[in-house]
């Protein structure tokens, strides 16, 4: 193996991330009108309960059949089962600290050791005051059996697991992100 190179350190996106990272189609993991599509929305709040108006959420997920159109998936890259499915979403927070993503539910995923991961999205949170992105996961409230067997959820203290569960909302799901405080969201080291 060649000599390992030192990685580039992360830095904050700063307060003006909107100018550089705004995509008009950012929130659309799937196009509007996709059968089964719903909104995931939520608010990001800091340790004082103040909405974070200069942050951004990015999401990544499998398609509804649990596949990725990616060469490193050892099952083989497979074009998405759903037309227009991008797998990726990006949403800056608005003046109330809210983000929103239009998506569909991903399939469950096989684990290397034979287990199964419950359907989930992996999220990155960027913002002013965040020197490195925060990584978290979103799980679905209607998957209690799969969630109970999910190896990642099981690795989290039971009293904090709930922070990774979305809750039903009129147009889909709600998933608030607490950077700090009594309800601090579980964030992961990747």
């Amino acid at each position: 193996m060649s000599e390992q190179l030192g990685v580039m350190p992360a830095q904050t996106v700063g307060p003006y991330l909107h100018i550089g990272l705004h995509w008009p189609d950012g929130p659309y993991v799937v196009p509007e009108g996709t059968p089964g599509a719903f909104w995931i929305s939520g608010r990001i709040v800091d340790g004082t309960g103040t909405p974070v108006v200069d942050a951004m959420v990015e999401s990544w997920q499998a398609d509804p059949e649990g596949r990725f159109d990616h060469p490193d998936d050892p099952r083989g890259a497979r074009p998405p089962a759903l037309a227009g499915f991008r797998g990726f979403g990006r949403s800056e927070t608005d003046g109330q600290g809210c983000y929103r993503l239009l998506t569909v539910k991903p399939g469950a995923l096989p684990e290397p050791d034979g287990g199964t991961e419950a359907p989930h999205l992996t999220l990155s949170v960027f913002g002013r005051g965040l020197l490195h992105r925060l990584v978290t996961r979103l799980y679905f409230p209607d998957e209690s059996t799969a969630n109970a067997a999910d190896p990642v959820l099981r690795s989290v203290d039971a009293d904090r697991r709930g922070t990774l569960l979305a809750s039903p909302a009129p147009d889909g799901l709600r998933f608030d992100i607490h950077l700090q405080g009594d309800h601090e969201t579980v964030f992961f080291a990747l």
Partner: protein
Amino acid sequence: MTTQDTQADSGLVLPRYRRDDVDAHPPLLSPGYQSTVARAPRHPLVYLPQRLTEITGPLLGEGRVGALDHDLTRQHDGEPQGQRIIVHGRVLDGDGRPVPHTLVEIWQANAAGRYRHARDTWPAPLDPHFEGVGRALTDDQGRYRFVTVQPGAYPWRNHDNAWRPAHIHFSLFGRAFTQRLVTQMYFPGDPLFFQDPVFNSVRDQAARARMIARYDHAATTPEWALAYEFDIVLRGRESTPFEDEDDDE
């Protein structure tokens, strides 16, 4: 899907990305940078094994980049004020392998140190010919190139008489979710480094130095533009033998 028979193993062999050294990135709580105090999580991060969602990621292609997106000096009818610079380099992984065809997004202040953003209201002029936003895809060797103007420094309210050193924000996807990175590129010899808590939040001096571009006289365009080279190293993979087994199908 349930596999509960004798098959204890799914046969999936996933690539693994090396975990970063503790000092490779800034600590989330860096009180010198005041905004971290109410925003950095207080619980320790929970270890996340890298599974299918993490070792894959969006491979965003040509459709995202317009013909002039890499040239911030040609996005308007007139030219922006300021010193023209070429910023180029390679995106590599931790083993020195190029990361080809990956999206690089940049944004920056104008030559006077002002961002075209509603919340940037300090009294420096906006430039009608400068947006301060660029995008490019790396080529098959991982190379990218932008043309822009030297950004100015600007004051902020973090501490008494605080000024951010001139910088360009960089956003990178790499090949997998594990490699996603947002950073800032700084300029060599900036006299403002000593008092900047964002730059100095990276505690390891060698790591901090990686964020400073190299002046690159060979890449200048005579009688036109100065040049800087900025290579960006994303996480590398563990060297595990890759077994191509399909017995989970």
